């Protein structure tokens, strides 16, 4: 046992030092947002830990995927084939509709929507912190992930990228209490804001007038207004509308359509769109429109 009398600093001194450090950290991290780059480095530093902590679960899924009977695989394969045929047919239809839409939009000389680049990602870990809803995915700056990038699963919007590391990054979910997303009702185009509630199955819509036309079961899609999320992806479904006149605004809750509590594979959407040809097309079109109007005047 070492002598107990000649210790350098007392516990109280150490505690004050450490508390001051945390106070400074909390202030700079929360209020100044000056730690973004440092957080990126820290995230890359600890990502080996995350990969290691994820190893047991990955082994389990690997085992369960490898130990399947032939019959099951054949059944699955059949199912996928049917699905593929179905989607293929839809894609053909979609192609025609898209071309038509582009032509109409260029006639109206409004900007044509470009293709959105997509990237596949797999979930690494889910936070055990009950105060924030975040997950970690296996893509980082090396794959071209950037902050604020929208993330979705096969059903709808999941969230956006919060911190980017070299080989992993953090996604904040739409149900997080500090997250909000601009949406509109698909039925009538009414614009709302969906804020996270901290509960996995509930989004809250604040400041909606009693007279607003919202019904239970309405599908809410992204409105593309904030510039973060592209337009038209499903977000949530309204589950409760309570118009209590004694309150200032209506109480509206909705439930995310994406299965946020059982995520595994996700898609990242990129902002870099292939605008070049369509922009030129719209220019020439507007040019010809102008010419024709001039011709009409003269």
């Amino acid at each position, binding site marked *: *046992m*070492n002598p*107990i009398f000649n*210790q350098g600093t007392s*516990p109280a001194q*150490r*505690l004050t030092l*450490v*508390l001051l*450090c*945390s*106070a*400074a*950290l*909390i202030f*700079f*991290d*929360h209020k100044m947002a000056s*730690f973004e780059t440092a*957080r990126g480095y*820290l*995230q890359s*530093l*600890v990502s080996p*830990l*995350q990969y*290691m*902590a*994820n190893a*047991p*679960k990955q082994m389990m899924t690997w085992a369960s995927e490898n130990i399947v009977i032939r019959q099951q695989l054949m059944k699955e394969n059949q199912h996928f084939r049917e699905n593929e045929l179905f989607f293929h047919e839809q894609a053909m239809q979609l192609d025609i509709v898209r071309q038509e839409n582009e032509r109409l939009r260029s006639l109206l000389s409004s900007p044509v929507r470009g293709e959105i680049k997509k990237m596949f990602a797999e979930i690494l*870990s*889910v*936070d*055990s*912190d*009950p*105060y*924030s809803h*975040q997950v*970690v995915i296996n893509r980082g700056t090396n794959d071209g992930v950037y902050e604020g990038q929208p993330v979705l699963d096969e059903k709808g919007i999941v969230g956006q990228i*919060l*911190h980017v590391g070299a080989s992993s990054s*953090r996604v904040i979910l739409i149900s997080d*209490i*500090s997250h909000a997303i601009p949406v509109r009702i698909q039925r009538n185009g009414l614009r709302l804001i969906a804020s996270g509630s*901290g509960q996995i199955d509930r989004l809250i819509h604040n400041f909606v007038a009693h007279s607003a036309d919202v019904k239970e079961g309405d599908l809410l899609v992204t409105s593309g207004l904030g510039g973060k999320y592209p337009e038209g992806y499903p977000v949530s479904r309204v589950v409760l509308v309570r118009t209590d006149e004694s309150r200032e605004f209506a109480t509206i809750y909705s439930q995310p359509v994406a299965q946020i*509590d059982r995520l595994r594979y996700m898609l990242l959407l990129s902002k870099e769109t292939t605008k070049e040809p369509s922009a030129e097309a719209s220019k020439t079109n507007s040019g010809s429109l102008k010419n024709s109007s001039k011709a009409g005047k003269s």
Partner: protein
Amino acid sequence: MFSNNGIVILLTLLIAIMASITPMPLSVDAFRPDWVLIVLVYWCLALPNKVNIITAWVMGFILDVLLGSVLGVHACAMALSVYIIVVNFQKIRNFSVWQQALIIGVLSAQYHLVVFWLQRFLSDVVFLPNYLYPVITTIVLWPWVFLLLRRVRRHFRIK
């Protein structure tokens, strides 16, 4: 910290950190014990000259980075909990294991409440009773961790 097989302490802390971030089903996740806190408390009781408040703060900071919370929140709570142990380690050492378990329970509750208060101060989180479920598992886990780590300490002759 690294003399006399002190590296083993670091290894146990690393394992504790991994245990606190391994993915779990949602229902089990609410009951995840405070692995890092338990291991830190054991080493503080056994070897207060090696593991102290600064160690606890650094571990809390790593947890902050791993959990994605605001930097400094878990670090602050961890340091406060370990401070109580460091100041009273000679008394707590003499208690029986179950009495110690109750004290660890109180510490764990304090840890979660400090984290909650800080989060409440930073954003509008609301208190749910299941934020304190880990306290139960932490109390149950302490005797086993205590016996295991004592074995580790004697086997590697960490002083």
